[in-house]
C-alpha cells in the first residue's frame, strides 16, 4: 500500500491544479457572460458565397 503515499499526493496536486484553473477562470471573467460567446460558433470564417442562401441559412438558426 506504499503506492498510496505517491498516488494520493498526486491526486491532491491534480485537485490543486483544478481549483487553481477554476479560480483563474472566474477571475478572468470567463463566467461573467454565458450568452454572447455561444453565438461566435455560428459565424463562418470564409467570406460569404451566395448571398441569398447565406441569409436563408442564417435565419434557420434563429
Amino acid at each position, binding site marked *: *500500500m506504499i503506492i*498510496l*503515499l505517491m498516488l*494520493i499526493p498526486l*491526486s*491532491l496536486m491534480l*485537485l490543486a491544479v*483544478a*481549483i487553481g484553473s*477554476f*479560480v483563474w477562470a*472566474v*477571475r478572468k*471573467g470567463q*463566467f*461573467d*457572460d454565458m*450568452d*454572447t460567446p*455561444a*453565438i*461566435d460558433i*455560428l*459565424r*463562418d470564417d470564409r467570406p*460569404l458565397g*451566395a*448571398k*441569398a*442562401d*447565406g*441569409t*436563408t*441559412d*442564417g*435565419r434557420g*438558426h*434563429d
Partner: protein
Amino acid sequence: MGAAGSFDPTDALIVDCAVDAISQAGVEACYHCGEALPASPVLSDVEGSVKGFCCEGCLAAAQWIRSSDLGDYYRLRSAAGARVDVELPDLAAWDRDDVLADHAFPVTGGLEITLLTDGMRCAACAWLIDRALQRVDGVLDVGANAVTGRIRIAWDPARVTLSSVLGRLASLGYRPYLASGAVQEREKLAERRRWLLRLGIAGLGAMQTMMLSEALYLDFNHHMALYTRDFFRWVTFLVCTPVVFYSGWPFLLGAWREWRERHLGMDTLVAGSTLLAYLASAVETVRGGAHVWYDAAAMFVFLLLCARMLEQRARRIASSQVDALARARPALALRERPDGTRESVPLTALQTGDIACMAAGEAVPADGVLLDEQAMFEEALLTGESNTVAKTQGAQVFAGTVCRETPARIEITRVGSATRLSQLTRLVEQAQAHRPPLARVADRIGTWFVLALVLASVAVFIGWRLHDPSRAFEVTLSLLVISCPCALSLAVPAALAATHGALARLGVLSLRAEGLDSLARATDVVFDKTGTLTRIDPVVGEVRTFGDMSADVATAIAAVLERDSGHPIAAAFASVPTLRTASGLKVHAGQGLSGRVDGMEWRLGRGPFAAGQNDDGRLWLGDGTSAVACFTLEERMRTDAHATVNALRALSLRIHLASGDGAGAVERLTRQLDIDDSHARQSSEDKLALVRKLQAEGRVVAMVGDGLNDAPVLAGADVSLAMGEGASLAQRAADMVLTAPSLLRIPAAVQLARRTQRIIRQNFAWAVGYNLLALPLAITGQVTPSLAALGMALSSLIVTANALRLMRVSVPESSP
C-alpha cells in the same frame, strides 16, 4: 418571406422584406433597424441588391459593419437593430475628469468603465459591440452582455478618448448611458464571482472528500493499517477545511448574526451541524478514534451552496429589468448660467435651484418646475402613459421623462436620490429583495423546528450516553444532519426563484412577492377596458368628407401628413398605402400638423386648429378655416383579447369588465368577448367599490388595468396586473407588470402561479414527511452520519429538482 434571390434589384423596397425576417411582414422596413421606411428612403447597394434605409445614420452603420467584415451580424441577430440617429449625440462630456473620476476606475494600462445601453436586444448585438469596439485603437478590453444590457470598456486614455470609443458605439445605434455607479457595478460583479468561487471550491473539495471517505467506509472489517487510515484522515482533513471555512463562510457568518440577534434560524443549524461534524472529526483524527465525518460536512456545504446559487440566479435575471429605470437618467445636463449662457455639467453637479435646459427628445435630468409657457413631456417610464403630456408653466416635471417637440427649461427642485425616478427604482429593488409571507412562515417553522431539534438531540445524546456511550456522539450527529430542515427551507425559495425566472420569460415582471400567491388563489378577474382589452393606439373609424373630395383621397393625405410625425395617432394611419409625399411638415404642439401635399397647404388636428370647427375629439383635415374631412378614431380590440378571456374562463375564473366609457362601447365589447358581467361609466371609486363588493363575497380579485388612472383600484384588488406598454415598470400600485404586449400572458401567469403553489405544497409535504420518517430512524441509531448526509442531500435535491420543473414554461405567442 422565403427566397430572396430572384427579386429585381430595382424593386428595393420589396426585396428588403424578404431579406430580413425581423421586419414586419408586408411593411417596407429599414435594412438596419427594421423601422418602417419614410416616404423617401435612402437606397444603397448591399451585397449586390439594393436595400432601403430609413436614414443616413442607419446606412452609415450598415456600411461600416459590412466594410469591417462584421456582416454576419445581420444573419445572427434575432431582433432588429436600433435606429441610428443621423445627428450623433454629443459625447465630449464623457471625457470630463469629473465624470471619469466618478464612474471609471483604473486597471492595468488604462481605465475601465461600465455603461448601460439601450438597443442591445439579442446576443448578436453584444457580439457586434464586442467586435466593433475592440477594433478601436487604444481599447484594451470590451465585454458586452445582452442579458443585462451592460458594456464594460477598458481603454488607454493616452491613446484614445472615451468619447471617440463611445462615438463608434453611438454610430452603430447604441447610445451609452451611465450605470448606477461604478462602485455598485463592481461590487455586484465581485459578489457574483465570490459566490462562484465558493461553489466551485466546495464542489471540487466535496468530491475529493467523498472519494477519500469512501475508502475508509469500504474498510468494513478494519483490515486497513492504522497509519494508512490516519494518513487518509489527515488528507481528508486538509481537503475539507477550505470547504467548511471558505465555501461555508456565508453560513458561519449567518449563524453568527443569528446568534447575536438571539434568533434561531436555518444558518445556525447548518453552521452548527457542519462545525460539529468537522470539529468532532478533527478531534477523532488526532485521537485516533473510530469514526470521522468529514464527508458529511463537505457535502452539506456544497449542496446548500448549490441551492442558494440557483435562487440568486433567478433573482439576478429579474433585477436586470430594473436597469431600464437607470437608463432613463441622462449622463449630463445642460445648465444655464445666471448670465444666460449654457454649460454642460455632470448630473452630480446639478443642485436645487439650478436651471436646466433640455432639447426636444432629451431626457429630463432632475425633478423640477417648468419655466416655459408650455412644453410636452413623455412620461411613459413613470406612468405608462405613452401619449405625450402637455404641461404649462409652473407644472412639475420629473427626471427620466422625455422632452418632446419643443425645447424646455426647468428650475430644479430635487436631485439625485430624491427624484421620483430614484424612488421608483428603489421601490422595485425593494420589492425584489422582499421575502414573501410563505417564505417567512417557512422561516418561522424552521426556527421552532431548530429549537426542537436541538433539544431533541440533547435528550438523545443523554439517552445514548446512558445506554451505549460509544455511539452517543455518532447518533446525535446523525440526528442533527439527517433532520436538518434544509429541504423545508429550500421548499419555498427554490420554487419562487424558478417561478420568477419563468415569469420573466413570460414577460411578466413581479413587483411584489405576495402577488404570486394571490394570483394563484384568484377567483375573479376584473378588466379595465381602454389600454387593456383594447389598444391605446386608435384606428380610423368613420370618415366624413365635406365637398367633393373622396374619403380615400382624404385618408391618403392624412396618412402622408402623419407618417413622419412620430405622433401617437400616426399608428392609426400606418396601414394606409400612399404614394404621395409631404413637404414643409410642421408639428404644432397640442394642436396638430401642417404641411404641403400635392401643392396644397393642409392642416390636420383638432377642430379649431385645422378646420375652424369646434373641438369635438375628432381629427379634422382642412386648410385652417374650412373643413375637408373629419375622422373618427376608434379603439381597436386586442387580437388576443378573445383567446385570453376564453383561457381565463377555462381556468374557472369569473370575468368582469369595468370601464369608464359609455354604455354603447362597453356593451359592444361585452358582446364580442362574451363577458359575464360588465359595468359602464365607472369612475375609479366605482371600480374600487366593485372590487370591494366582490371581496366581501369572499372572492379573490385580480385586477388588470393599464396602470394609469386606476391606481387605487389596482391597490385595492388582491392582486393587480398592469399593462407594461411604454415600459411602465414602476407601477407602485400594481403587483405585476406585463412587459410583453400580449394579453395571453395573463392566463399563462395564472397557470404558473397555480403550479408554483402546487409545487410548494408538494415540497413542503416531502420535506416534512422525510423528516418525520428519518427522525425515529436516527434516534434509534439506524443511520450513520454519512448516510444521514446523503439522505438529507437527496431530500434537498428532490425538492430543488421538483421546483426547477417550474422553469419549463411555454410562452404563448400571439400577434400584438
